[in-house]
């Protein structure tokens, strides 16, 4: 359906949307099922008839859930003869009967209680909450308060159509970083909206807030040795959290990317924004794509910075292998790096084999908060560390040296590297991991990702075993899937890093291809995940795109990337 939709088709879509809106008590999947089915009906007038029937179906469903009508046999006749009249009638009855009204989108402004906010930034911030339905199909099932921060542009008057930034995770907080976000806007002339996704940061519900701590304690042990015992302990920790959440009256089906996208749509309405620019990063790209697919008319542009793989998700360890190999190949092509570290890929493999034979006891910086500032470096822990460092271009110059030091058992050099560059990175990463809500992470992923219900084969890679395999099947059932807005007309920019350990550049390009003619794809050399954070070139391209999506993109800065300043081998 590349041609402009006909009037009948447009009307059919409107009716189907209306049907979805009218279907309050049935699971959301029904509303969606009816709407999606439309796309499979080639004939426009048949589609219109279908959509009209869906609307009637939704009225009937509503009536049967409405106590005053549920036992009347004549409801079918009533519904078919006066559907629109009934809509008005029902609305009136709801008021008159003193029934609970469905929640309306509303921004409740509060004082800003955020860390690190300077006196310059403070006047630009508006903080508050928006109460969203826990379940969009059951408006009476309670609400969650979401934390929302609006950052006014430094340049006033700001341009219309603000940017909503959707951060990665799932499970990571956002509004706590408002001060940093205010200093690094995506499109400086526009206001910026930040939302803590449900179950993260300051947003409700607080889903097992202590899980991160418990898991963090186990994480290094698990990274060090992914034994069956470590696996079982981790699984039990997750399931205890699940039981605790259910005991508190939470429904774990109230999570997932589609519901998060609906939350953002609710926030948009609460802030009375007609259209906005959507910037999704990492997992935020999943939410952003779903939001565009569900509410295309509300999005002016969308940037997808570092794709989080859509279903079907490739095994993570294979993606990491490719990213690492690309990094090693870069070293081999670099004169300095290849002189100091000939055949780094082979050195790395030997290092793993040596650590398998004999783990090293390594002194680490105090900020990593390890007992006695020491860690037993096993092969799988080392692999996890190298994988983490691939996210950080600031670590690239040191990485070959670290591998060589561990290979040679040269702990003094390793200690220096850890203290100067890598320690702070790893410590920051541990701190960020501690603020992530791991229960929300599981709650969203288990709804979104059917593959976590499969069993990993025996002897699976440690990186894959640390995913949610073996947990989701006992956590909740699969929810409506995250969506890719294939064929959308919303101007889309896809940014990918050459060494991205989360999605291969080829996969990101594939997503751009799926989206179609409205998507532009740019690959950034010598960058990992999170392009904009680590590439001034990426930040400029994204800002240009948001402000002028119709203009030809100037991506020439990607050709002027300086080589990695590899540290030479110490003698």
């Amino acid at each position, binding site marked *: 359906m590349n041609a402009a939709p006909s009037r009948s088709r447009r009307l059919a879509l409107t009716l189907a949307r209306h049907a979805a809106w009218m279907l309050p008590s049935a699971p959301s999947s029904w509303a969606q099922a009816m*709407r999606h*089915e439309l796309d499979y009906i080639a004939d426009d007038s048949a589609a219109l008839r279908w959509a009209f029937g869906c609307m009637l179906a939704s009225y009937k469903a509503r009536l049967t859930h409405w106590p005053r009508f549920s036992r009347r046999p004549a409801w079918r006749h009533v519904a078919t003869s006066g559907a629109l009249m009934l809509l008005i009638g029902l609305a009136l009855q709801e008021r008159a009967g003193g029934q609970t009204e469905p929640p309306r989108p509303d921004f409740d402004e509060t004082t800003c209680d955020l860390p690190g906010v300077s006196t310059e930034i403070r006047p630009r911030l508006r903080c508050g909450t928006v109460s969203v339905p826990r379940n969009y199909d059951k408006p009476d099932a309670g609400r969650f308060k979401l934390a929302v921060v609006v950052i006014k542009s430094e340049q006033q008057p700001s341009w219309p159509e603000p940017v909503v930034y959707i951060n990665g995770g799932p499970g990571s907080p956002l509004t706590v970083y408002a001060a940093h976000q205010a200093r690094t806007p995506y499109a400086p002339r526009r206001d910026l909206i930040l939302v803590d996704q449900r179950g993260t940061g300051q947003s409700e519900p607080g889903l097992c807030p202590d899980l991160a701590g418990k898991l963090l304690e186990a994480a290094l042990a698990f990274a060090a040795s992914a034994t069956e015992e470590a696996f079982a302990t981790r699984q039990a920790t997750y399931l205890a959290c699940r039981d605790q959440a259910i005991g508190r009256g939470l429904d774990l089906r109230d999570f997932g990317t589609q519901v998060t996208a609906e939350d953002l749509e609710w926030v948009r309405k609460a802030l009375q924004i007609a259209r906005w620019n959507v910037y999704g990063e990492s997992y935020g790209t999943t939410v952003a794509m779903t939001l565009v697919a569900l509410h295309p008319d509300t999005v002016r542009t969308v940037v997808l910075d570092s794709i989080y793989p859509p279903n079907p998700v490739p095994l993570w360890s294979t993606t990491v292998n490719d990213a690492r190999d690309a990094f090693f190949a870069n070293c081999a092509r670099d004169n300095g790096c290849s002189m100091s570290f000939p055949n780094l890929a082979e050195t790395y493999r030997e290092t793993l084999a040596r650590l398998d034979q004999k783990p090293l006891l390594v002194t680490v910086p105090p900020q990593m908060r390890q007992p006695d500032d020491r860690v037993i470096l096993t092969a799988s822990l080392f692999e996890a560390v190298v994988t983490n460092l691939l996210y950080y271009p600031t670590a690239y110059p040191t990485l070959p040296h670290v591998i060589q030091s561990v290979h040679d058992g040269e702990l003094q050099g390793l200690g220096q590297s850890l203290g100067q560059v890598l320690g702070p990175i790893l410590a920051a990463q541990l701190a960020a991991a501690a603020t992530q809500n791991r229960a929300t992470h599981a709650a969203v992923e288990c709804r979104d990702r059917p593959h976590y219900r499969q069993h990993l084969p025996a002897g699976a890679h440690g990186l894959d075993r640390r995913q949610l395999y073996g947990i989701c099947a006992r956590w909740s059932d699969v929810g409506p899937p995250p969506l890719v807005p294939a064929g959308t007309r919303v101007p889309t920019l896809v940014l990918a890093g050459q060494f991205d350990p989360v999605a291969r550049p080829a996969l990101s390009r594939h997503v751009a291809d799926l989206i179609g003619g409205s998507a532009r794809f740019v690959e950034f050399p010598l960058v990992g995940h999170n392009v904009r954070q680590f590439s001034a070139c990426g930040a400029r391209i994204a800002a240009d795109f948001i402000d002028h999506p119709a203009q030809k993109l100037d991506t020439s800065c990607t050709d002027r990337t300086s080589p990695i300043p590899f540290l030479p081998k110490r003698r």
Partner: protein
Amino acid sequence: MWRHGYDLSKETGLKSGTLYPLLMRLSEQGLLESRWQEPERSGLPPRHVYRLTATGLALAREQELEAVAAERAGVLA
């Protein structure tokens, strides 16, 4: 066998306005299960598909037998 809503509608002659309330009711009663099927072509959304649960199937067979029995009763009467 998993079936799509539109195909079911064509096969049974029921319009969507009749079909979906039936499907919803069957689903609520645990007689019908549904799942999302990945789109066959890119550019299309995932599609909802349905089939009878074991209970639904048993009930359907029971009703079929009853119907056959009723027909026979009619013939005999």
